[in-house]
């Protein structure tokens, strides 16, 4: 099935969600029928500390326009300290991307608990809006991954 048949450009957003809080928060958003754009695709990871900066760059390489990472609120990590490491790692990565002149709004970290379905949907709506406004990611993609318009 061809993706994006219609010509209207839609962003591609990858969301890394930790299994214990944010993925459950996304589930709750679903159970509560809180809609957010279909452009957001969730990848489950055990903990935000499992998210390797390489995954995020990989997503951009492949044509993602925005990457968001969600984890348990600091202090609530299922593994007690995972998100603290994730927090530092992501801060550093984002800072470097910004330093290289890549739009910093394309990356984001949000802490979403299992109870925050509402927040999850709100965050995704907001992020998708930001990315849509930013437009296509041209600075960090691999041209070889661009979809050919044939």
């Amino acid at each position, binding site marked *: 099935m061809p993706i994006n048949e219609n010509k209207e450009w839609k962003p591609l957003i990858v969301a890394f969600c930790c299994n214990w809080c944010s993925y459950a928060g996304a589930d709750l958003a679903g159970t509560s029928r809180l809609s957010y754009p279909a452009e957001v695709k969730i990848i489950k990871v055990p903990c935000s500390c499992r998210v390797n900066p390489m995954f995020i760059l990989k997503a951009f390489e*492949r044509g993602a326009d925005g990457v968001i990472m969600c984890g348990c609120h600091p202090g609530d990590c299922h593994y007690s300290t995972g998100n603290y490491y994730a927090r530092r790692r992501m801060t550093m990565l984002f800072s470097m991307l910004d330093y290289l002149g890549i739009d910093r709004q394309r990356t984001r970290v949000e802490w979403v608990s299992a109870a925050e379905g509402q927040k999850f949907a709100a965050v995704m709506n907001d992020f998708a809006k930001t990315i849509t406004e930013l437009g296509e990611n041209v600075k960090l993609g691999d041209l070889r991954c*661009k979809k*050919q318009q044939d």
Partner: protein
Amino acid sequence: MYYIEKAKLSELFSKIAENRSLYLPVKKNGQTNFAHWEEGTEYCDDLKTVKSAKDHFFPQTESLMHFKTEGKKIQINQDKIPDEKTVLFGVRGCDAKSFKILDSVFMSEPQDAFYTARRENSVVITTACSSPDEACFCGVFGVDPADPKADSDVVTWFAGDKLYWEAVSEKGEALTEEIKDVLSSSDEKEVEEEKARISEITKLLPLNNMSLSAFGGDKTDALFNAPQWDKLSEACLGCGSCTFVCPTCQCYDVRDYNGANGIQRYRCWDSCMFSDFTMMAHGTNRPTQKQRFRQRFMHKLVYFPANNNGEFSCVGCGRCVARCPISMNIAKVIKSFGGDK
């Protein structure tokens, strides 16, 4: 022999660029490398580009073919053979010689279609080296920096306020014919003086008198187990800077890139100094840096001449002398096997 005033170089370049793509040394972000000439591009007369001119015929990465899957079927699309007509200006004698060495690799059977096409579609304009530096030792490999006629289509000299121009091959003649409007005829006096001046400097070059008598196609047994390799390779970092700036290194790896748009098969430069060079299922056949280091120099000084009528795979450009992070280079290798005697 023709000349054009240096001040009018850009006229010459625009003229050449009318029918062909022109490539010449350009300084960008502090480094000089061959680049495509466009109106306004400034020629840089630095002695040596960081990377050699080989990129022009053998680029660092080159797409060979694409695979596309449709359902469970696979479709293979060959990449187009390049047909751009090009002119390479400002090539030094050493780099010009390297083309001949590369030709014997890529244009002998099985012929490399991409390389051959580029080579056949190009005119090589060499420029004599007005100020060779201490790392130059092209003389050791028979290159004349004062008069780089060999392996060239057009030879040029910068002398006084002029650029002198002499076509030395059919291709060169044809090009000269095309652009004659901007050139003026000249005698050879100033060029001869320049040649003599360069030759005098060449005599002062400290590395230019090394002897290659220890090397050659028949020296495998004598050199392979020589004790010198331990010491020489000891500090080698295993990076590829020597290889990637070398005008004669021609090893490449073929890789597949699985993108959203199908799979691209491309080749990219490889370096025998890399630990994963020619990696095979069982591992690598040269597990130590000493073996990898030895391979590079044995190839240039022994194996290559063995297979190419005694031609060494080094042109003495001295780039490795300048670029090696730990200052180990082919000159030191040659010397440690008695080359300085």
